[in-house]
């Protein structure tokens, strides 16, 4: 059975890789299997995880704990969502959508305010000139780092200021900001490409080791 699994996985891997040449019938078959299996898997997983484990067990607990009556509210929203199947009362489905979007956006607001505003400001507030307390000499590495952080934060924020055209000093500061952004993106790019390479190596390792047994 395990051998069969390895063969199926290997053939599907090669089928997906065939896309590198061009779109072809083998890729289409693999793509359809992938989509079909995943859609079926997630349908069942959501049914058991959300509907059974979270809702049913929650409102009718089997371990003696108190029923969570709030879950009925979620169930009601779910039923309202299904109203969209009817052409006459389909508008009702907008209510649960409005609730989900509004409630989550409200919750995220505080989260983002703390992480994107407060923490950003507090991390920027640092000694720009860092001095060794024993020798009273400037530590140049940390000083340059601190100065870059302050300049990067200020110029980056100026770039994302939309109420004023990027001209004059404002425009030049925004240009410094975009330089900082691009250098950061470059670093991210290199880092992520390396991690993708490791994924590719993992797949090739599977083909050569587990399937073909060419590697020991």
């Amino acid at each position: 059975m395990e051998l069969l699994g390895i063969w199926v996985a290997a053939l599907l891997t090669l089928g997906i890789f065939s896309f590198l040449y061009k779109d072809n019938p083998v890729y289409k078959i693999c793509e359809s299997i992938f989509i079909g299996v995943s859609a079926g898997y997630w349908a069942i997983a959501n049914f058991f995880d959300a509907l059974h484990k979270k809702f049913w067990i929650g409102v009718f607990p089997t371990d003696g704990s108190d029923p969570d009556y709030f879950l009925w509210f979620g169930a009601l929203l779910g039923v309202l969502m299904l109203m969209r199947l009817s052409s006459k009362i389909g508008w009702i489905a907008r209510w649960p959508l409005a609730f989900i979007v509004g409630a989550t956006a409200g919750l995220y607001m505080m989260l983002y305010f703390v992480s994107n505003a407060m923490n950003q400001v507090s991390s920027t507030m640092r000694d720009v000139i860092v001095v060794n307390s024993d020798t009273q000499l400037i530590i140049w590495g940390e000083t340059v780092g601190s100065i870059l952080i302050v300049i990067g934060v200020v110029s980056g924020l100026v770039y994302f200021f939309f109420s004023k055209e990027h001209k004059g000093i404002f425009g030049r500061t925004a240009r410094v900001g975009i330089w900082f952004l691009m250098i950061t993106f470059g670093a991210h790019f290199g880092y992520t490409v390396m991690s993708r390479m490791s994924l590719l190596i993992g797949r090739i390792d599977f083909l050569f080791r587990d399937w073909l047994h060419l590697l020991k």
Partner: protein
Amino acid sequence: MKVKMLLAVFLLLAICSNSYAQDTTAEGDTTAISVDSLRLPAPPGNLSGRDKPNDHGHAIILDWELSPDDGGGSNSVLRYDIYKWVPQLMLDINLVRDSIIIIQKIIRKTTDGIEEGSQADSMLKVFSKFSKDELFDIRNRLTDHIKAENEGLAEASKSYPENGAWLFIDKKPSGTKTFDHIGSKEFKSKGFVPDYADLYYRVDAVTITGAKASSEIFGPIQSSGQWYNTYRTPVVFSVFLFTILTVFYVMRAKQGADLYVRPLGGIEAVDDAIGRATEMGRPILYVLGLGSAADIATIASFTILGRVAKKVAEYQTELLVPTYDPIVMTVAQEVVKSAYLDAGRPDAYKEDTVHFVTQSQFAYVAAVNGIMLRELPATNVYMGKFFAESLILAETGALAGSIQISGTDEIAQIPFFIVACDYTLIGEELYAASAYLGKDPVLLGSLKAQDYAKAAIIILAVIGVIVAQFDFGHYYVDLFEVVN
């Protein structure tokens, strides 16, 4: 059968209860150890405690002065053992909790963590004789038992020092002067600490020989939860100011004030791209990403989709919107339908314009790649939350020769869009684009408020740098430290 079963369980609990209580008392009895010790260390001094502030309750902070023999003196203290006095009722409840854990293990067919010959092992042997249904029944009855008994804990804790024992909680290395006793709020958990019940603590200084000296006993103290976290007052204040700013600018926008938003390259290109698709007679592919309907990037993307759909309806071009999330699909369908209605072409709207694919990341990518290569869209628009699939999508789109416009607030994915797309909206530009396109007073007003909030952040940060550099007072810097 049920009577027999319960009798067996409670007989077992009664037997174990005695040995358990003896074990616990022995662990906490310092006199037994001190007899064998050559010399006792000096005890920790001035043990005090307080309810942990700004929390959900069930936690106490303890402070003490180091033993004079900690780091000096003749008996160097190795560690501090922290004990809590618990009424016998709590010990009984803990035993029932242990039983439930054993029952769960039998149900799950595992014996991990149970040593042969231990008390848990003997419990395991007794419970193993019951069928699965009987075990479920016992477990439920024991849970009910704990729930009922917990209500008597506050009353039982008043019997101190009678009818109870010292329970070891934790140990801390020498040099430690404080300990946060964070209990569980779940009554089913063994670490449960009841709120509004009298709690008593003591700290023992322990030497390398095992000699112990106890501090004065501290108590009673009670834990309780707070509704308001005072550490977060600056956040509330800032959100309040930001809300005022937003309401002000929204009202100005509604009154017809001309609120300027600088042009965004990527958005200016959308109209041209739709025109190109119309001329070529090819569809437009709009990808909303993998975010949920509540993600800010997805919400911004809905506004842009509305604008694109309206133009598409006007130009009578085909639009394809494959979605990853069923709720996103539902919202997107509403958005597109409204856009067709606004364009005066409700008849042109097709239900399968926006369609669900799958909730598996790479299966979704495979499907969208297939659409790109088979339908050959003239323009691909990627707006929303993207993860590892961003480069795969954008690269395939580039190979198919489509004009590509992207926008995301996922910093790690922006580089891939920049290299593979013709236009990219970076981070917050995506939110600005939705306001810029929609011209909705609410969106424009909030964009203006965000801009001025950014200006305030710059000023506050620069002041903070000056304050930190010249040491003008850390109270200002501390204002922005958000403690969880």
